[in-house]
């Protein structure tokens, strides 16, 4: 059964078409990579799924119900959480409070929310930083805080927008481990990522966008050898 079903979604900004007729499905428990050159419409697609933008055409279904037209907070309540490419921590709050604020989504009790928040900080390896004001965190930690915060809303589907960009090799490995652990919990994940090694090793399936259109979809193996994808990334193939 597909958890997320994007059906013929288009999104226009004035005359510019940021997404054209994009369709794909995400199965429960999968990790789906979303790749494409800069400006291909990856983040726009996340914004459509997450509710910041309404699709100009087409519809998005989550658990077989349409979610297009709902507000971001309603979509989050239904079980889709996201992180931001440009991190948006709640700057003047501590790391713990950041996670606590999102943990309140499914409970009004402070004790329960605090328990959940501590669990998640442990899970994402941020326990030691819990009292740091998030403004002062290094970028790697802030990226991870984004993931922690999204997890605290107890989502079924997690949208990660370049959560690996700008990390050093150690942080990168840690983050990959965290993503694997999240999947083991049964949470479905969609990742936007430019880091090919990461996306090829993590994803079960990959969707490729170029100029707002889906140009390929398949397993990492298939994508690697797809001429259209190679062309989008490397330019037209020269006849040797």
């Amino acid at each position: 059964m597909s958890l997320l079903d994007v059906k013929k979604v288009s999104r226009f900004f004035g005359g510019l078409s940021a997404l054209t007729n994009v369709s794909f499905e995400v199965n429960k428990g999968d990790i789906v990579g979303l790749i494409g050159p800069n400006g291909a419409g990856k983040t726009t697609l996340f914004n459509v799924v997450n509710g910041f933008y309404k699709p100009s055409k087409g519809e998005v279904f989550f658990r077989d119900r349409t979610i297009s037209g709902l507000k971001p907070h309603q979509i989050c309540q239904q079980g889709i959480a996201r992180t931001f490419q440009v991190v948006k921590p709640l700057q003047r709050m501590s790391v713990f409070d950041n996670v606590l604020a999102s943990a309140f989504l499914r409970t009004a009790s402070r004790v329960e929310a605090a328990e959940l928040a501590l669990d998640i900080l442990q899970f994402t390896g941020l326990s030691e930083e819990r009292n740091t004001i998030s403004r002062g965190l290094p970028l790697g930690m802030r990226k991870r805080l984004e993931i922690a915060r999204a997890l605290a809303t107890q989502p079924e589907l997690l949208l990660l927008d370049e959560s690996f960009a700008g990390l050093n090799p150690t942080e990168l490995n840690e983050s990959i481990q965290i993503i694997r652990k999240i999947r083991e919990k049964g949470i479905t994940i969609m990742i936007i990522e430019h880091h090919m090694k990461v996306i090829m090793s993590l994803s079960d399936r990959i969707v490729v966008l170029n100029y707002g259109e889906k140009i390929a979809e398949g397993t990492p193996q298939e994508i690697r050898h797809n001429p259209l994808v190679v062309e989008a990334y490397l330019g037209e193939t020269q006849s040797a």
Partner: protein
Amino acid sequence: MKKYFPFIIVGLLAVLPLIGLSSYVMHILILVIMWSVIGMAWNLLSGYCGQVSFGHAAFFGTGAYSAGMLYSKLGLSGWWGLPASIIIVTCFALVIGYICLRLRGPFFALATLSMGVILRIVAENLVDFTGGDLGIMIRERTWVEKMWYYYIILAIACGTFIVIKMVIESKLGYYFVAIREDQDAAESLGINTTFYKTIALCLSAVLTGFAGAFYTNYMGYIDPKVVFALHDISIVTIMVVMVGGVATFWGPAVGAIIMVLLAEIIRSIPTLGTAHHTFFGILLIVIIIFLPNGIVGDFPKLKRLIGLARRPS
């Protein structure tokens, strides 16, 4: 010690009038406590939830007029204005919130600024309804002695403090701060930002309205230029919190003490009296540059500054 601090303060304030203070000192104390209430209310909306309001006079005046008009139109005691203002001010806040809360940041601030001014003009011109510029006079004062007013405003202040402390330490408070820090992030974390901003606005408005209703009963006279005043109410509210400390529990109280005393002191100097707003302006500039988090928020910094000044001697 720190846990009992609020109780000690309230205890001290409760016995203070028993030592026989002059009615002038009592008046100052009442004003200080009233401004703490307004400051705490503003702090909830603008300090914690980040929706800076330049028009709290709108709610103060609405509260004051609901008390005054219950008396002048229906012949009820002005004290009914306290419960009545919960309903009336909430309705007003919902209308204002519906219009203004779709705006963000400075646009919201400007919209609230205009709300205060609009309400003043309405109150001035609906002569049959509000009495216009003549204002409303409460002819039968409930008490002559100031002591009772003192205890009533003290009770309102304690209630306000408890409400705000409970709100801030609960889910609501975390949501408010999340909205202040990043509205888009808050929205994508499942927080219905419009809804929670409306709650913050209504709570803040009702508490401010309480202070307004109290003001009518205490002063016995209100007119639109006084209770809907831009500089004497809306701006002083902001100053009280800015001076004391934005988004701190004790900031509004500290700010109220300083602002009321300062106003009294400056006004008592004959040649400078009329220029007291100038001093407030200068004070605000100094605070923003040197203590951007206010006296309570920047207390460690303040202590260090004073410590530095003392060291050479």
